[in-house]
């Protein structure tokens, strides 16, 4: 009836975490070689929901591809669309009205806050605390309602157009956003009291999974993963785009290199995003949201173009090789989570499984964005 379990000579066993596992938040599979509770070797296996977005980019015309970008990262979709429209505008020389750029920045920052809130809840849930997720989702709900009123959708937006926006913001949105900022600041205080100050929470993160700066650079990590290891890199500051130079905000950098530092960076980023939204609402100029002169058919001149943006998950790059046709010759999407995830294989060696999965939570992985 029972066949004996054969152990390998070195007495390790393979634990297949995923593709369906509560900790991986999607269809990511991690093949772990375990020695008891310790991880000897880990290998991340991706590609379960590969949807060929890059190939679709080559087959579809430029406007047809607009909606694909928000299907990459369903939590912070607007940042990706932003990169795409900025690139095509740069390539085809389309002028964007100032009001449109301001609204774009406000929307992207709101979306970043929503994304970080969801990450916060899911991360604490990875650590076994379920309630903060519910609080975070409630705050996120306000953002989604606001965005729904303007963009028409709640998750996979197709709001940005080449040269401007699909819809102008109304007074309802502006007053809702103004009400939201103090409410969110109050919630942040509550989160810090409930979660950040909790001794169990701190003990599980302090000093766990140290990532050196060399390792972050080797794998091309960005976002809170790099900034938690003391690398002061934010595309919004280092390669400014859109109207970000107009805003006064800080890039939170922590030098502890551990999971708690990554957590602190993201929580501080929520505060900085709120500052940007506040300034954006104050400075919001009047004017059109679409340019007066816009080519009927978008055909960028032959050439090689690149645009990087800072999304909620890190530095997202999009490269376009155009041959002057209606569709791109090649469209490459550089997804930040893909780089951040590959740290995991090397960094989790010798860790216990529960620390490793907490570490994975701190990387903020969104699997559809890795697989594209």
């Amino acid at each position: 009836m029972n066949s004996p379990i054969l152990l390998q000579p070195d007495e390790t066993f393979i634990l297949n975490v995923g593709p369906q596992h509560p900790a991986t938040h999607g269809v990511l599979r991690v093949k772990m070689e375990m020695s008891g509770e310790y991880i000897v070797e880990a290998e991340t296996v991706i590609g379960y929901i590969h949807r060929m977005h890059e190939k679709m980019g080559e087959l579809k015309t430029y406007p047809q591809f607009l909606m694909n970008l928000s299907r990459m990262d369903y939590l912070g979709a607007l940042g990706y669309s932003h990169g795409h429209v900025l690139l095509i505008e740069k390539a085809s020389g389309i002028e964007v009205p100032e009001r449109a750029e301001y609204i774009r920045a406000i929307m992207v920052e709101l979306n970043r806050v929503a994304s970080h809130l969801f990450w916060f809840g899911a991360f604490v849930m990875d650590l076994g605390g379920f309630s903060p997720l519910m609080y975070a989702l409630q705050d996120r709900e306000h953002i989604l309602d606001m965005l729904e009123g303007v963009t028409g959708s709640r998750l996979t937006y197709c709001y940005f157009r080449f040269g401007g926006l699909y819809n102008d913001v109304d007074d309802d949105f502006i007053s809702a956003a103004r009400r939201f900022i103090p409410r969110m600041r109050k919630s942040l205080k509550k989160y810090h009291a409930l979660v950040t100050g909790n001794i169990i929470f701190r003990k599980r993160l302090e000093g766990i999974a140290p990532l050196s700066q060399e390792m972050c650079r080797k794998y091309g990590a960005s976002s809170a993963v790099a900034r938690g290891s003391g690398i002061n890199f934010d595309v919004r500051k280092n390669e400014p785009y859109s109207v970000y130079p107009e805003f006064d905000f800080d890039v939170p950098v922590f030098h502890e290199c551990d999971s708690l530092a990554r957590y602190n960076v993201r929580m501080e980023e929520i505060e900085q995003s709120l500052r940007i939204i506040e300034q954006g609402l104050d400075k919001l100029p009047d004017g059109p949201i679409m340019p007066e002169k816009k080519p009927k058919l978008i055909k960028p001149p032959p050439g090689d173009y690149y645009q990087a943006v800072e999304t909620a998950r890190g530095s997202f790059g999009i490269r376009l090789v155009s041959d002057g046709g209606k569709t791109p010759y090649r469209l490459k999407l550089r997804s930040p989570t893909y780089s951040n995830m590959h740290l995991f294989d090397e960094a989790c060696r010798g860790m216990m499984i529960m620390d490793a999965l907490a570490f994975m939570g701190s990387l903020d992985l969104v699997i559809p964005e890795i697989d594209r």
Partner: protein
Amino acid sequence: MRLTLLNVIVAVVIAIGFAALNAAYLVWAERRGAARIQRRPGPNINGPFGLLQPPLDGIKLMAKQLTIPGGADKVLFIAAPVLAMFPAIMSFVTIPFSETIVAKNMNVGVLMIFAFASMGGMSLVFAGWSSRNKYAMMSSVRAVSQAVAYEIPMLITTITVVMISGSMDLMEIVRQQSGSILHWNIFPLLGNSHNILMPMSFLIFFTCTLAETNRAPFDLGEAESELVAGFHTEYGSMGFGLFFMGEYANIVIGSCMTTILFLGGWNAPLPFLGFIPGVFWFLLKLYLLIATFIWIRWTFPRTTIYGLLNLSWKILIPLSLFNLLFTAGLIKVF
């Protein structure tokens, strides 16, 4: 009270009824409590306030097929959920709810309850080992080290109380604490020991009860974010149902013991409140403790396995040993 056959049957039926009713309705209470903490309604569709939810859940679980994974050890696989529920029900037999309401009082009641409580750990080991699942296996290994680590400070603390009372009889322990709140073992200023360290012992005992019953923040056996569902990953149907009910029955037993050993059992907190029946005070204390269990579960994240063992071996065991010696000294002095 003479032990006739009728007496025994009535006692056992009441014990099982109380245990099952508590287990079923604590699930409901926990879900409503969690919902209240998380600002959502919780189960409120079936019956008034969702009160029909537990029986309906039970019917659903019983109607499902019990699947046994290939290569599992069938006998142990089936025995494990029964082992989870049975010790808790047995322990109810000797719990005194008031001066008169007790199924069968024994002069070694404390010993009996701890003997049965340690069988609870066995069910986790059997379940994890017989499922032939790696997650379940890891969970049961954790459960063993956790049970070993937490039964020691729990027993040492209990010995402290037994030394103060001079009896292993649960009713005798409660009678010793009669008077007012200052006679209870949690803060015995007017009691016969005058031990100012007893609040610490109470906290140690309460922490150990949390760990013994595998409740958050010590629910490492079923850490859902890393071990999927821990030892009951492979269980469906009523096998899972028994584990679930066993957990709540164990919570009730743990809270009963805390009430009896530290909170004065059925005694009223102030002497002039003595006209209210003792069973009211007992149930009040019991359910306040259980509410604390639920509150803690939905507030704290989970600890790590090494954090848990460090807490036990480096803090709880030395502290409880120290209090044992301190109490012994105080008893000698007074």
